[in-house]
């Protein structure tokens, strides 16, 4: 991961559309706004706005950081499709990051729980520890019953849902960014197989 570069960060896996433009590892501009199932309409226009404001063409971007979920299936696919295309068209490095890790960068607390509601009493969650500007994973990304997850955490933590991320921290933290070796193989992290696949497996098991 090079800090000396023009970086575009994209995350569309939650209700919030998140974009950031970084130069040499420093956030120059960002977009963080709640959407109403309209990421598909807004992402490309907002990418254009943020790049135009900073006098940067999309072809000048030399690395992309993409939030690969977990989160909304439809949402995350929009961002991942766009990131794949940018990486492919311009032959630039693409780094994937967990959407939960990206969310955790918003907090200043020592212990951080990024949280995305997954309905029926479940949520996508993880637990991160922060020291200085560095984050490390204590509990990996998961989908779990909300009460069960929190009942096991006996210390103070900051639950992050809607705060604006600070992607600068990603560069300092070990293992949060993973370079994509084969752009064609990049896919969202859904965390779950589809209901149809589950039913089919059950049928075969019986």
């Amino acid at each position, binding site marked *: 991961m090079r800090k000396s570069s023009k970086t575009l960060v994209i995350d569309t896996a939650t209700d919030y559309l998140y974009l950031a433009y970084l130069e040499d590892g420093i956030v120059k501009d960002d977009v963080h706004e709640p959407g109403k199932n*309209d990421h*598909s*309409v*807004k*992402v*490309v*226009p907002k*990418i*254009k706005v943020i790049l135009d404001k900073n006098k940067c063409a*999309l*072809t000048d971007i030399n690395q992309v950081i993409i939030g690969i979920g977990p989160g909304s*299936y*439809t949402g995350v*696919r*929009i961002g*991942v*499709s*766009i990131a*794949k*295309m*940018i*990486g*492919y*068209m*311009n032959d630039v490095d693409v780094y994937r990051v967990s959407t939960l890790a990206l969310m955790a960068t918003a907090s200043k607390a020592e212990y951080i729980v990024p949280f995305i509601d997954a309905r029926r009493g479940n949520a996508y969650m993880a637990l991160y520890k922060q020291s200085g500007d560095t984050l490390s994973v204590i509990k990996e990304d998961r989908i779990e019953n909300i009460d069960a997850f929190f009942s096991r955490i006996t210390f103070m933590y900051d639950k992050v849902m809607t705060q604006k991320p600070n992607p600068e921290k990603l560069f300092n933290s070990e293992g949060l960014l993973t370079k994509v070796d084969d*752009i*064609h*193989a990049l*896919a*969202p992290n*859904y965390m779950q197989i*589809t*209901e*149809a*696949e589950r039913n*089919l497996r059950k049928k075969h098991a019986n």
Partner: protein
Amino acid sequence: MLVMGVESSCDETAVSILRDGKDVLANTVLSQIDIHKAYGGVVPEIASREHVKGVTMVFDTALKEGGVSFEDIDLIAVTEGPGLIGSLLIGINAAKIVSLNYDIPLVGVHHIAGHIYANNIEHDLEFPLLALIVSGGHTELVLMREHYRFEKIGETQDDAVGEAYDKIARVLGLSYPGGPEVDKRSREGEELYEFPRPMIDTDDYDFSFSGLKSHVINLHHNMLQRGETINVNAFCRSFQEAVTDVLVEKTKKAIDAYSVKGLIVAGGVAANSGLRKKMKANVTDIPVYFPSLRFCTDNAAMIAAAGYFKHQTLKHTDHYDLNGHSRLDLAKEGL
């Protein structure tokens, strides 16, 4: 003018490159059909996942096949609907980011306009023209008096014809997709059963296949109850005869009423051999066009062709806020 077409409305991820709306330089289709077979039909969430997986590879294959690069493309056309929304959004956002990256004008295209313009790849359309659209999602008669103006004069009141085929095939225990299988077996069977021809004599150009479908399913069920042997080939033949009788009769009625100069049949069911044969045998006074098989099923060449004419005729381009639509009115497409 080089047009790149992008299509992802159902279970095919496709990118094509056409010169001047006709000359096909590349026609790449990544079909998911083998994946959905296990489920007896297209599973929307799985379809969307497969589109994301394959999207960049399909662009890459098409560019290599066409021997061109993105910089050579003058217009990018993408299916904006109707279709599965999660699937549509992959193609749309890919097309939009290509448009932004290379500053290529963007145009959203109606999927059915694509099926109609698939015919223009191989023969010039002559107006007024009647188009019969038959697929898993559509059964429509469309009148065109000039390029890129569509008047829907009739449509199905319930099931699409391809949908009825798939359901019949499932009941008969045939593999998915059912249409080609029923077609194949009907060629080996006799018309032993008298099935209804719904709406064949009505004064409109509408269709209905759900009653016919129920009739076939009920007969099958009752025969099983009575312990009779099912002649699957005869079931297929009898069903196919009923369906194609209605399609041909209604189409003929519309040809006479609107004095059209040509008929085109488009969509996946245009590949059906029984329909091809019967339509050509019964419509003899005007030319009848069926696209070649590779342009019948979903592809992006048809989207590029339609996009070219939309852009030429209406001087239309879309902005980066272009969105997908699971339902979309064809009549508004030409306005």
